[in-house]
C-alpha cells in the first residue's frame, strides 16, 4: 500500500480559499460526507481527515496499483466542498509515501503551524484519528502512521524548546496592536475562544500591560467552564456562576500590579464588543461570530474608539467586511503569518533540532512500514510457492505411484524403501510403507527448493533490519545496491523498488497490504 496526503494549508492558500475548503465536522458535515464518498468509491482505502484552523488534509493509505489517485481525491474534495476542481488543484498539496508521513509528523509537532510548536494541533490530529477509527476507515497502515506521528509530536516537543517560537504569533499580533495603540495599559483585551493562539495572544497582551490602569482582560467561550478554566490558566482568576456574566472584577497580583479580568458568558458578547479595544478571536464556530451589521450597530456605542480584531479562527470568526468599517482594524491568520514567517525558516535552534528529529522519525516510520510490508510479501510468496509445491508434489506422487505399480507390481518400491532407510534419510514415523516415504522425500525436496529460492532475499532483509530502501533494494535488487565506505547499503531508486514490489505482487497474484515501495513527492 501507499500512504498519500492531499490537503490545503496556510502555506498553499490564503484564508479565503481555505475557508471554502474546510470540511465541517459532525454527522452531516463535509468531513463525514467526504469519508462516505471515498469509502463508497474506494472501499479498500484507509482514510483520516485532519481539520485544523490552518489546514484541511486527507491522509489515505491505498494499494499501490489501485485508487484513489491524486486526481480522484481532488475530485472528491471539490465535490464535497463545492469548489471548482481547478481551484482545488491550484491550492492543494500532494505528498506520497515518506513525504506524506513526514508532513503529518511536522503537523503533529507544530512545525507546520503558524505558532511554532503549538500543542493544540496535536489534539486536533488525535481527534481526527479517533473519529476516523470510530468510523472504521483506519486500517493497519494508518494506525501505525498516526500512532507514530502522534508519538513523534510528543517526543519532539519534549526534546525541542518551542517557547521562543510559541510567542511569535502573539508577538506579531502585539506588533499590529502597537500600530494602533501606544500601549495596552488601560486597554480592554477580549479573547473569544480558548485555543492556543488566543491564549498566546492574551498572555502577550497581559505582558504588554493589558488589564491594568482601568483596562481588563476577558475570556469568552461558548462553554463557560472552559472559559473559566482558560481564565484560570491565564491567571485571571475567573470565578463565578458559569451561566451568568461574571461582573465582579477579578484581580490578581501580576508583577506587582493588579490585572483585571476573568471569564464572561457568551451572551455578553455585544457588551464586550463595546468595551473591547483588542479582540482576539479563535473559536471553532462554523459561521462568523462577529458580523459587519453587528459591528456597525455597536461602533456608535464605542464612541469612535479604535478596535483591533485579531481573527485566528478557521473558518474566520469575523466577517471580512468588518475590516472595512471606520476605526476597525481587522487582521487574520494570513496577516499574522506575514509577520511571523521568519520564525519558520528553520533559523531557530529548536526548529532545526525538531526538523532533524522529525526527518529521522518519518524515515524510521516509513522503514517500519516497508519492512513490515516486505516481510508480509515474502511470507505471502512463501505460502504461495509452498502451495504450488504441495500441489506439484501430490501430482508427482500420483504419477510415480501409477508408473511403478504398473512396471514392478510393488517389488521395486520395497527395495527403494530399504535403500532410503539405509541411507539415513529421516522418514516420518507415521508414514507407513513406500508411499509415505516418497511423499516425505518429495515434500522435503520442494521445501528445500523454495527455501533456496527465498534464502537470499530473506537473509538480506533480516540483515538490513532497519532502512527501508536498503531492505527493498537488497531483497529484490541485490546487484543494484551500491555500498558506501562504511559498508552500508545506499538507497536505490525508491520508485523503481516500489515498482518491483508491486510487480512481484502482480506476477504472483499476491494481495497488496501495508508498506509499499519507495517514496515520491509531487504537488
Amino acid at each position, binding site marked *: 500500500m501507499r500512504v498519500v496526503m492531499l490537503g490545503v494549508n496556510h502555506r498553499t492558500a490564503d484564508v479565503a480559499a481555505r475557508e471554502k475548503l474546510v470540511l465541517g465536522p459532525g454527522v452531516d458535515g463535509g468531513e463525514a460526507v467526504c469519508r462516505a464518498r471515498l469509502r463508497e468509491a474506494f472501499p479498500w482505502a484507509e482514510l483520516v481527515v485532519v481539520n485544523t484552523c490552518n489546514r484541511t488534509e486527507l491522509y489515505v493509505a491505498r494499494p499501490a496499483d489501485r485508487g484513489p489517485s491524486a486526481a480522484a481525491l481532488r475530485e472528491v474534495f471539490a465535490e464535497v466542498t463545492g469548489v471548482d476542481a481547478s481551484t482545488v488543484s491550484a491550492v492543494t498539496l500532494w505528498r506520497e509515501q515518506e513525504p506524506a508521513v513526514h508532513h503529518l509528523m511536522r503537523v503533529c509537532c507544530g512545525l507546520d503551524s503558524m505558532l511554532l510548536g503549538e500543542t493544540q494541533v496535536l489534539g486536533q490530529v488525535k481527534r481526527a484519528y479517533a473519529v476516523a477509527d470510530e468510523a472504521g476507515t483506519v486500517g493497519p497502515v494508518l494506525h501505525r502512521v498516526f500512532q507514530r506521528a502522534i508519538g513523534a509530536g510528543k517526543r519532539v516537543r519534549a526534546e525541542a524548546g518551542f517557547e521562543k517560537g510559541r510567542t511569535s504569533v502573539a508577538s506579531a499580533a502585539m*506588533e*499590529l496592536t*502597537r*500600530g*494602533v*495603540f*501606544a500601549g495596552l495599559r488601560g486597554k480592554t483585551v477580549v479573547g473569544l475562544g480558548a485555543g492556543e493562539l488566543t491564549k498566546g495572544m492574551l498572555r502577550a497582551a497581559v505582558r504588554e500591560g493589558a488589564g491594568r490602569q482601568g483596562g481588563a482582560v476577558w475570556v469568552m467561550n461558548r462553554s463557560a467552564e472552559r472559559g473559566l478554566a482558560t481564565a484560570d490558566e491565564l491567571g485571571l482568576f475567573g470565578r463565578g456562576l458559569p451561566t451568568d456574566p461574571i461582573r465582579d472584577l477579578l484581580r490578581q497580583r501580576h508583577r506587582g500590579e493588579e490585572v483585571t479580568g476573568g471569564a464572561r458568558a457568551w451572551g455578553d458578547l455585544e457588551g464586550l464588543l463595546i468595551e473591547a479595544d483588542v479582540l482576539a478571536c479563535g473559536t471553532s464556530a462554523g459561521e462568523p461570530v462577529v458580523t459587519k451589521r453587528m459591528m456597525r450597530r455597536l461602533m*456608535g456605542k*464605542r*464612541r*469612535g*474608539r*479604535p478596535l483591533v480584531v485579531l481573527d485566528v479562527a478557521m473558518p474566520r470568526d469575523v466577517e471580512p467586511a468588518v*475590516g472595512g468599517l*471606520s*476605526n476597525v*482594524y481587522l*487582521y487574520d491568520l494570513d*496577516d499574522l503569518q*506575514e*509577520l511571523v514567517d*521568519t520564525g519558520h525558516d528553520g533559523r531557530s535552534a529548536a526548529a532545526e533540532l525538531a526538523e532533524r528529529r522529525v526527518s529521522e522519525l518519518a524515515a524510521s516510520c516509513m522503514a517500519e512500514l516497508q519492512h513490515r510490508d516486505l516481510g508480509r510479501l515474502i511470507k505471502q510468496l512463501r505460502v504461495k510457492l509452498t502451495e504450488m509445491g504441495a500441489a506439484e508434489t501430490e501430482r508427482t506422487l500420483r504419477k510415480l505411484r501409477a508408473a511403478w505399480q504398473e512396471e514392478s507390481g510393488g517389488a521395486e518400491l520395497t527395495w527403494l524403501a530399504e535403500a532410503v532407510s539405509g541411507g539415513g534419510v529421516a522418514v516420518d514415523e507415521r508414514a507407513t510403507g513406500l508411499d509415505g516415504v516418497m511423499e516425505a522425500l518429495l515434500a522435503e525436496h520442494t521445501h528445500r527448493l523454495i527455501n533456496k529460492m527465498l534464502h537470499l532475499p530473506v537473509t538480506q532483509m533480516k540483515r538490513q533490519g532497519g532502512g527501508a530502501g536498503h531492505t527493498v533494494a537488497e531483497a529484490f535488487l541485490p546487484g543494484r545496491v551500491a555500498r558506501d565506505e562504511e559498508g552500508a547499503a545506499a538507497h536505490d531508486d525508491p520508485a523503481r523498488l516500489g515498482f518491483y514490489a508491486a510487480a512481484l505482487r502482480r506476477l504472483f497474484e499476491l494481495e497488496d497490504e501495508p508498506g509499499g515501495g519507495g517514496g515520491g513527492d509531487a504537488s
Partner: protein
Amino acid sequence: MANPLTSLSLMGLTVLAAVAAAVAVRRLRADRAGVVQGGEVSGDRSQATGLNGGERWGVLEMQNGLVGLCVAGAAVVVVWRWGVRGWGGLPIGAHVDGLLVLAVLLGGSVLYLQTRARMGGLAAFGLPILAFVLLWAVCASAWTYHPFALDTLGGVWRAVHLVGVYGGTLGAVGAAGAGAMYLYVQQRLKDRSPGALRGVRGLASLESLETLIVRASGLGFVLLTLGLVTGVLVIYESDRVLAVLGDPWWGSPKVWLAVGAWAVYAVLMNVRLTGELRGRRAAWLAIGGLVLLLGVYGLVTAWPAPEERGYGVFDVGCGMCDVRCDQTESVGRVVKGVG
C-alpha cells in the same frame, strides 16, 4: 526687500530642507518596502530602495544633519537680523523673522521626534512643511518684505501677539503633520496587499498620532486665541479696523476664515469627547485647519479691498491684526502686517 544676504541664506536653507525632506520620504518608503532584520534587508526592500541596515542608519544621520544645519542656519539668520536691528525689542522684526523662528521650532521638533520611538516617520511629513516655510520666508524676504510697525504696540501685547500667532501656526503645522501621518499609517494598517504590514512596525501608533493632533491643536488653539484677541486689541488701538477689514469688519472673509480656523482647533482639541470626530476625521480636520490658516495668510497677502480704498497691503500677514507702518505712515498708507 530685506538684506540680499538674508534672501540668499534662506534660499540655501530651503534647498537643505528640501533635500532633508526627500531623504525622510525615502526613509519612509524604505520602511514600507520591508523591515531590517539582523542588519540585513529583506529582498523586497533592498530591491525597492537599495538600502541596507547600515545605509538606513547613514540616511538617518544625513537627514538629521541636514535638518540640524537648517535649524542652526535659520537661528543664525534670526539672531544676525536681530543684531542688525540693534538687539532691541523682540527678535521678530518682520514676517520673514517670524517664519524663520517657526522654521527653527519646527526643525527642532522634527529632530526631537527622531529620538522618540516610532515617531521618526513624522519627519517625512514635517520636513516638507519646513521646506515650504523656508520657501515662504524667501518670498517674504525677497519680494514682500516689510518690517512690522512695532512702535504701534505695547511691549507686552506685541510679544503676546507675535508668540500667539507664530506659536499657534506651529501648533497648526504640528497637528496637520500628525494628521497626514495618521492618514498614512491608517492606510498602511488597512492595506491588505502582501508585505504591506511589515513596515508598520516602525511607524507611530494611531493613538500617539491622535494624541499629538489633540495636543498640537490644543497648543494652536490657545495661542491662536491669544493672537486673535491681542490682534483685535491692536486693531482697535490703531483705529484702523474699518480701513483694513472693511465695513462691517466682521463681514470680511479674512475674519471668517480666521474664526473658522480657530473653531477647527477648538473642535480638534476636544475630539476625544465626541465619538463622531475621532480618528480619520480628526486627521482631516487638522489638515483642514492648516489649510484655512494658510487661506487667511493668502487673503491677507492678496485681498485688494482695503488698499484700493487708500490703504496699502505691503506685507504678508496673519490677517488677525492691522498696524500702521512707520515707513508708510509718512506717505499716508497703511501697512498690514503680521503682528
